[in-house]
C-alpha cells in the first residue's frame, strides 16, 4: 500500500466521519433532503468564490459556498412560510434554480475558469493526494486532508459542546425552547455545519457522495438502535467501513472511488434494511404475519366461547362458517392446540380448555375497555408458542 493510497483512504474516512455527525441529526429531524438541496446549491457560491480566490481549497471559498448553503435553507423556509406551496416543493424549486445559475456562470466563463460541473458533482478522490499543502517549503500532506480534518475537528468540538442542546431540540423542540435553548440558533448552527461539511467534502468526493455519506450511514444506524449516542457511533462506523471497502472495490474495478463508496453504502444499507432485528424488512414482515395468525386465533377462541351447540364447534365448520381457507384454519387450530387453549374430542368437536376460557374472558375485557396495549402482555402470559 503506497502512501498515496493510504492518504486517499484517510481522506475518505475523515469525510465519512465528518458527514455522519450532521447526517444523523438531519435524518432524525426529517430534513434529509435539505442536504441534497445544499449539495447542489453551493455551486454558485463556489463559482463566485473561485472567481475571487482562484483556489478551490481557500477558506474564503469554503465560507462563501457554505453561506450559499445557508441561504438555500433560508430561501426554502421563506417560500414555505408564504403557504403558497409545501416544503418539499419549495426545496425542489430552490436548488435547481441556484444550480442553474452556477452552471450558467461556469458556461459563460468557460475560458478562464478551471472548474467543471462534473467535478463538483462527482469529485475525484484519486487526485486528492496530488494537491499538497506546503508550509515554508515542507510538505505536510494533501490540502484536502487538512481541510476536512479541520472541519471534522470543529464538528466534533461543537457536537461535544452542544450535545445536550442538540439532543433535546431534535426530539422535543418545545421542551428545548422552554428550557431556554433557542431552537432557531441550533437549527441554523446545524445547517451551517452541514453546509461547511458539504463544501469541504465536495472537492474530494463530490456533492452526491456527500449526500450519500450523510444519509445512508445514519439511516442504517437508525434501523439498528434508538439510542442517539449509539446511532452516532454506528453511523460513523458504517461511514468509515464503506469508505475503506469502497476504496478497495474501486481499486479492483478501476472505477470511480466516489461511486464505489456509494455502492458499498448501498450494500450496507440493503443488508441492514433486510436483516435488522425488529426493524428490518424481514423482521417486520414476520411480525405482521405472526400478528395476523394471532388475531385469527383470538377470533376463533371468541367464536368458541359464544357457541355451545355442537354444529358450531365442529372442526370442519371453521372453513365453512368463518370462511377461512384450509391452510389458515389448520394453522390456527394447531396453534390453539399447542397453546393448550382448546381440546378436540373424538367427534371432531372443539371446546375451550380452562386456560382457553381464562384467556378469552381477558380478551373480551380488553376488547370492551381497549386499555393500552395489554394484549401483547396477555399474549406473553398465555402463549407457549407464538403464531
Amino acid at each position, binding site marked *: 500500500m503506497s502512501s498515496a493510497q493510504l492518504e486517499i483512504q484517510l481522506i475518505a474516512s475523515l469525510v465519512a466521519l465528518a458527514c455522519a455527525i450532521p447526517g444523523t441529526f438531519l*435524518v432524525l429531524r*426529517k*430534513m*434529509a*433532503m435539505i*442536504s*441534497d438541496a445544499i449539495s*447542489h446549491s453551493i455551486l454558485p457560491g463556489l463559482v463566485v468564490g473561485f472567481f475571487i480566490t482562484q483556489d478551490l481549497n481557500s477558506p474564503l471559498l469554503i465560507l462563501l459556498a457554505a453561506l450559499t448553503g445557508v441561504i438555500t435553507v433560508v430561501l426554502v423556509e421563506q*417560500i414555505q412560510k*408564504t403557504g*403558497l*406551496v*409545501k416544503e*418539499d*416543493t419549495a*426545496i*425542489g*424549486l430552490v436548488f*435547481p*434554480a441556484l*444550480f*442553474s*445559475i452556477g*452552471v*450558467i456562470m461556469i*458556461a*459563460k466563463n468557460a475560458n478562464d475558469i478551471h472548474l467543471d*460541473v*462534473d467535478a463538483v*458533482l*462527482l469529485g475525484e478522490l484519486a487526485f486528492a493526494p496530488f494537491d499538497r499543502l506546503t508550509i515554508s517549503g515542507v510538505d505536510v500532506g494533501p490540502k484536502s486532508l487538512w481541510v476536512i480534518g479541520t472541519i471534522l475537528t470543529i464538528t466534533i468540538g461543537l457536537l461535544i459542546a452542544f450535545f445536550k442542546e442538540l439532543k433535546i431540540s431534535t426530539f422535543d423542540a418545545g421542551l428545548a425552547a422552554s428550557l431556554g435553548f433557542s431552537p432557531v440558533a441550533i437549527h441554523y448552527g446545524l445547517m451551517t455545519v452541514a453546509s461547511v461539511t458539504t463544501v469541504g467534502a465536495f472537492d474530494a468526493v463530490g456533492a*452526491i*457522495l456527500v*449526500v*450519500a455519506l*450523510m*444519509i*445512508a450511514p*445514519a*439511516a442504517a444506524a*437508525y*434501523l439498528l438502535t434508538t439510542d442517539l449516542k449509539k446511532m452516532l457511533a454506528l453511523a460513523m462506523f458504517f461511514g468509515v467501513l464503506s469508505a475503506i471497502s469502497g476504496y478497495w472495490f*474501486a481499486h479492483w*474495478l*478501476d*472505477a*470511480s472511488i*466516489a*461511486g*464505489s*463508496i*456509494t*455502492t458499498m*453504502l*448501498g450494500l450496507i444499507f440493503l443488508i441492514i434494511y433486510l436483516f435488522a432485528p425488529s*426493524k*428490518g*424488512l424481514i423482521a*417486520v*414482515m414476520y411480525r405482521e404475519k405472526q400478528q395476523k395468525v394471532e388475531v385469527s386465533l383470538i377470533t376463533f377462541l371468541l367464536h368458541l366461547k359464544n357457541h355451545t351447540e355442537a354444529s358450531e364447534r365442529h372442526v370442519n365448520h371453521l372453513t365453512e362458517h368463518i370462511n377461512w381457507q384450509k391452510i389458515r384454519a389448520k394453522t390456527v387450530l394447531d396453534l390453539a392446540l399447542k397453546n393448550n387453549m382448546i381440546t378436540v374430542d373424538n367427534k371432531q368437536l372443539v371446546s375451550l380448555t380452562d386456560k382457553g376460557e381464562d384467556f378469552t374472558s381477558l380478551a373480551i375485557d380488553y376488547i370492551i375497555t381497549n386499555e393500552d396495549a395489554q394484549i401483547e402482555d396477555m399474549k406473553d402470559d398465555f402463549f407457549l408458542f407464538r403464531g
Partner: protein
Amino acid sequence: MRTITLGTAILGAVTGMLGSFAVLRKQSLLGDAISHAALPGIAIAFLLTGAKDSNTLLLGALISGLIGTFWIRGIVSKTHLKSDTALGLILSLFFGFGMLLLTFIQKQPNANQAGLDKYLFGQAATLVESDVWLMAIVTGLCLTVLLLFWKEFKILLFDKDYAHTIGFNTKAIDILITSFIVLAIVLGLQTVGVVLMSAMLLAPAAAARQWTNSLGTMVFLAAVFGAFFGVFGTAISASQNNLSTGPVIVLVATVFVLFSFIFSPSRGLLFRQIRFIKNRRDLELHKTLAFMFHIAETHDDISHPHTVKILNNFQGYTRGTLQKLVDKNYVTLEGNMWSLTPEGFERASNLYNQQTNKNE
C-alpha cells in the same frame, strides 16, 4: 432548431401535466430522486446491449426509476424511516452506483461509450426527430390515460380513503399515476439532465397552482406553462453562445414561478398584502363609526352635532377615516362639528348587531 424547440415544448407540457399530480400528492421531491435513480438503468442498458440507442437506454432508465420509486415506498411503509430519508437514500445510492458503472464503462474498450454523460446534465441539442416523436407518443398516451381515469385520479388525490371505500382499486391507480410520472421524468433526462429534472416537473405545476383552485384548470395551465418555458428557454439559450438549454429553461421557469407567487390575483403575495391593508382600513373605519355611534346613541336626536375634538380620545380616528365616512354619506361635517346621518346611524347599528351575532 425546430426539432429542439418542439421537443422542449412537448416535454414541458407533459412534465407540467404530470407534475401537477406530483405537487398535489406532496411527492415533489420524488422527481429529483427518480431522475437520479434512473442513471444505473441507463448504464446497465448500455452494458447489456453495447449500443447507444436512446430508446433502449430510456427503457433501462424507466425500469431503474420504477425500482427506485417502489423501494422508496417499501422503506417508508415497512420501516420507521421517514420519506425524506428514503428519498435521499435512493437518490444518492442509485446515483453513486450509476456513476460507478459509468466510470467502469469508460474504461471499456468500446468506442461507442462517449456521450453517455449527456444524461447527467442534458443536452437538448442532441434531440433528433425520433426522440420528439417518442415524446409526442408518450404525451398522447398520458393525455388519454388522464382523460380516461380522470375521476379516479381526482378522488385518489383528494380523498384516498373515500376512493378506497367506493371500491376503486387505489393501489392500481396509484401505481399507474406514479409510473407515468417516472416515464415523464425519464423522457426529460436527455434534454435537461438528472439534476434539473425536478424543477421541470415542479415549476409549471407550482406556478399553475397559484392561478386556480380547480384541478382541471391547473393541469391544463401547467401543461401550457411547461410548453411555454420550454420554447422560451430554448429561444434564449439559442440566442447566445455557451448557454446550455436545461439551466436556462429552469431559470425561466423559476422567474415565472416567482412572478406567480407575487402577482396571482387570489393567492399572490402582493394582492394578499393589498387585501390585508384594505381590511385594516375597513376595520379602522368601522371602529370610528362605532365610536361615533356610541356617542350619538346617548342623544335623542341622532344628528346632534359634536366637536371633532372628542374623537381625539379614540385611537382609530384619523382625518382620512373621517373624510371617508363623509364620502360614504354616513357623517356630515360642518366646520369643527360632525354629526351622524340617519344612513350612518342605520349602518352603525347594523354593524353592532352583526358583531354581536357573530360573537354568539
